[in-house]
């Protein structure tokens, strides 16, 4: 069956008043392009966000509008292979689904949701790019897109316990919190886990890790495979229910926060049988309850700035929490980039872009607005709460020869913990 038909099948199933309104109201003004790091980094107009949803737009226009139907009578032949390949490239390699375009759109079009829907259709038609499709398959088979099996997981934990001397409780039932981190952190930023463990201990939190619910990353979110996306979340939430915890704490991952909350509510209805908290909220909770204290001289003399991760800050709303934290550890030397908060420039690595080698070159171009931002304030370190952003910053700072430290916020907090015994627990 040809590509157009397959795609139309998926999109039309999900065509409702919302979708028709979104596509109807676009005035072709091009302001969305001005907000997209991929357009600004390359100057290439084909990366205009409203164009990334082209297969979706076409399917709805040709099947659900009078003019579109008339036009389709004249434009026979369907889309060429090149066109389809371009659609895949636009949707997966030149977009992080950061939603900056949606924030800028004067019509209030929810472009992020439209691009996600576009990906879902492409995935359903079997057009997911190889690297992402492989990663999803690996996550399905082994529980992690990097192939971290249960055995590997447990071995790694052992190593970390020894190396860092931290307590990493595993599969302990009836505790307060289940901490779910990402296999990215496990492999690339193990310091995150050690830091997290230290913070938990200092706060006296009753917590555990889970061997079945060990992965918060969800590569099916990137690929748009809705069934697998639900399955991956279910593994985590089932573990939480089995353990009987009050809450799931998600560590430094961008998309996990929104994905887990949204899909959990679909699986279990509202209110959820457990809270879903991001590590930023956890740390702030500890601070406000006086369970941990941070030293204001921990980063004396170091200019620190914070990079708002798209999924956590713009789409997650966790904007003031990192600032509350960083103002405590660097009260004199914390600086903001411009723009910041929900208008912060996307780093260009999220949404699966970093995982696709085909996008290696272009994501460095998309990093250019960030380079500009950093050069203007010349910080010594940039702190972020998302591991993908962290990887992108590491790659980008090397590529552009920038002398800058890239830190995860949990490590920053752990390094600034006051060593006297805090109150509580």
């Amino acid at each position, binding site marked *: *069956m040809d590509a157009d038909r397959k795609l139309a099948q998926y999109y039309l199933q999900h065509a409702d008043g919302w979708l028709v309104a979104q596509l109807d109201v676009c005035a072709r003004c091009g302001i969305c392009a001005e907000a997209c790091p991929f357009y600004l980094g390359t100057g290439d107009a084909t990366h205009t966000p409203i164009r990334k949803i082209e297969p979706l737009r076409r399917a709805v226009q040709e099947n659900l509008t009078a003019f579109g139907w008339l036009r389709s009578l004249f434009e026979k032949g369907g889309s060429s292979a090149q066109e389809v390949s371009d659609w895949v490239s636009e949707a997966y390699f030149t977009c992080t689904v950061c939603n900056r375009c949606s924030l800028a759109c004067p019509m209030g079009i929810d472009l992020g949701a439209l691009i996600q829907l576009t990906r879902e259709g492409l995935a359903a038609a079997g057009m997911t790019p190889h690297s992402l499709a492989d990663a999803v398959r690996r996550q399905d088979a082994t529980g992690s897109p990097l192939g971290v099996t249960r055995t590997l997981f447990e071995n790694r934990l052992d190593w970390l316990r020894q190396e860092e001397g931290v307590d990493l409780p595993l599969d302990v039932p009836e505790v307060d919190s289940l901490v779910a981190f990402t296999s990215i952190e496990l492999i690339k930023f193990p310091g995150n886990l050690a830091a997290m463990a230290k913070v938990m201990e200092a706060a006296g939190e009753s917590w555990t890790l889970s061997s079945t619910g060990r992965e918060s990353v969800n590569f099916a979110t990137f690929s748009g495979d809705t069934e697998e996306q639900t399955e991956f979340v279910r593994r985590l939430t089932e573990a939480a229910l089995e353990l009987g915890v009050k809450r799931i704490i998600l560590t430094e991952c961008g998309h996990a926060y929104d994905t887990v909350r949204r899909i959990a509510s679909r699986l279990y209805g509202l209110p959820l049988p457990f809270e879903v908290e991001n590590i930023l909220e956890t740390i702030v909770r500890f601070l406000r309850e006086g369970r941990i204290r941070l030293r204001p001289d921990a980063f004396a003399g170091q200019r620190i700035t914070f990079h708002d991760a798209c999924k956590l800050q713009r789409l997650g709303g966790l904007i003031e929490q990192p600032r509350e934290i960083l103002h405590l550890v660097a009260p004199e030397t914390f600086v903001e980039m411009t723009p910041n908060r929900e208008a912060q420039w996307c780093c260009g690595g999220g949404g699966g872009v970093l995982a696709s080698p085909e996008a290696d070159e272009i994501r460095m171009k998309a990093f250019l607005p960030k380079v500009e931002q950093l050069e203007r304030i010349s910080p010594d370190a940039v702190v972020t709460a998302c591991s993908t952003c962290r990887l992108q910053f590491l790659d980008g700072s090397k590529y552009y020869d920038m002398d800058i430290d890239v830190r995860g916020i949990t490590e920053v907090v752990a390094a600034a913990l006051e060593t006297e015994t805090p109150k509580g627990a």
Partner: protein
Amino acid sequence: MTEKTIYESMVERGLSRRDFLKLATLMTAALGLEYSQLPKVVHAMENKPRLPVIWLEFQDCAGCSEALTRSHDPYLTKLLFNDISVDYHETLFAAAGKQAEENKERVMDEYEGQFVLVVEGSIPTKDNGVYCTIGGRSAIDLLEEAASKAMAIISVGTCASFGGLPHANPNPTGAVGVHELVKDKPIIHVPGCPPIPEVITNTIAHVVLLGEIPELDALGRPKAFYGQTVHDRCPRRPFYERGQFAESYDDKGAKAGWCLYKLGCKGPTTYSACATIKWNEGVSFPVQSNHPCLGCTEPDFWDGGGFYKSLAAPPGAEAARGAQAGFASLGGAALAVGSALYARKIKQKAAEEFKAQKKKEA
């Protein structure tokens, strides 16, 4: 009743050459001609005899005749009534009945091809024109007879020119202007409801004294008097430009002489000399007296959307309001329901196809 030239008859009455030239100069100005045309006027009056005038009234109110008698230009009125024989005028004539009619027939025959026919009032055409008959003959008939023998026709008033009030919706008598029935003679339109007295007299004078048709605009009106709009010469124009409009007849704006656009003034689309020549010996005209211009020199001014509705208010909007708009909304709603149902069908079909496809691939 004369073969004497106009000049000769004036001399007979005791006017000197000098008086005559003064008169001719005044008349040249009154006719809206340039000063360089004076020799032409003099020559015409020296060589042409007076032309008789037959004035017919049909479906009219006699307002135009009333206006005629208010013409204040002494020289021309005198000229017209003393030196030009108005050989038939129902309203102004003392004579009546068969004698008057016979007189008319005689003049028409004697001066066939030479007299000027002035028509006042519209001509009803429905039901064979039975709605206006004089002496047992229909207006259509009377007009046809007179027009066939006339040299030229002047339609005085909007009724004779374009149908006027009787012509307005729903036009129960089938009223029409002269030009719809007479196709083979030159017709000058002097519309207005009524026309400015001086415009009537000056136009008639131009034809009768110079023996020629003045320069006419696209609607057949003398350009000298209908060449500009009331708006273009209106003393309240600066208020229009500034956007200062009276909201009612006695509000602050009205008292200050502000523009009457919002009260329905049709000045911008009305060609007439009201703002320059004015009325009652140049005393005033409607706008100056704080009443919006009705646009009475234009065809169909009665049906133009409403005297007191601003020019900017489209009559089409009034017509579409209410029931029609309601039906349009219902139509849109019905189409929307149909479209939504169709979309649902497409959705279901897509879902089924998708499921079937998935099964096939599994």
